[in-house]
């Protein structure tokens, strides 16, 4: 699946998107955040406060307990500040 990053998450990881292949035990959006945080120093920094990270699956906001099965594009970003 494609992971996309925005704002401070994008800046800290140093890329705006990539294809990721999480292992079978990664079932929810929250699992995916935790797994990404373990990919290296930049990821650990991007997800150092996982509770505030927002997740969107195929461009819909979801909670951390949402299942990621079947997702094509999962986005990670801090709380929004538009408007």
């Amino acid at each position, binding site marked *: 699946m494609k992971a996309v990053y925005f*704002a401070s998450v994008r800046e800290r990881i140093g890329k705006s998107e990539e294809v990721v292949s999480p292992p079978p035990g990664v079932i929810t959006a929250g699992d995916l955040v935790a797994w990404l945080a373990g990919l290296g120093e930049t990821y650990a920094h991007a997800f150092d406060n996982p509770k505030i990270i927002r997740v969107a699956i195929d461009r819909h906001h979801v909670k951390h307990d949402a299942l990621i099965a079947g997702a094509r594009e999962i986005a990670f*970003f801090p709380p929004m*500040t*538009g*408007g």
Partner: protein
Amino acid sequence: MTTTIRIQAGDFDAAAEARKLTDGRRDIGAVVTFAGLCRDEGGSLAALELEHYPQMAEEEIARVAARARARWPLAGVTVIHRHGKVAPGAQIVLVVTASAHRTAAFEAAEFLMDYLKTRAPFWKKEHRADGSEGGWVEARDADDRAAERWAD
């Protein structure tokens, strides 16, 4: 019922957008226009840079607009949100609502702004006037609380 949603880098003409909702109609009693502008924060801000999630931004705003239409009897809704760099004094976001009565137009405009603030995937980064690197603007708890008051 006209719904217009645009995400664009360029500026917008609030009056022209309001006119599009009312032209040729005689059943509209109230038009509320909200324009959000970039403040210079006492001179410390040189510009805001708005990052967004392109496809989702438009889809999410459409979902928010659909909720507003379901909740209030609206004759028209327009939402325009800019991305990229905007200078102090420049416009960032526009919401226009038209209805037979003022209460629906006012409430729908406030609802749209509260939801845009907390659900539309946009992020503001500051560019400081003194040349130092600005940070990402922090989300405000007050915006979350403002959105919560519309909970069904």
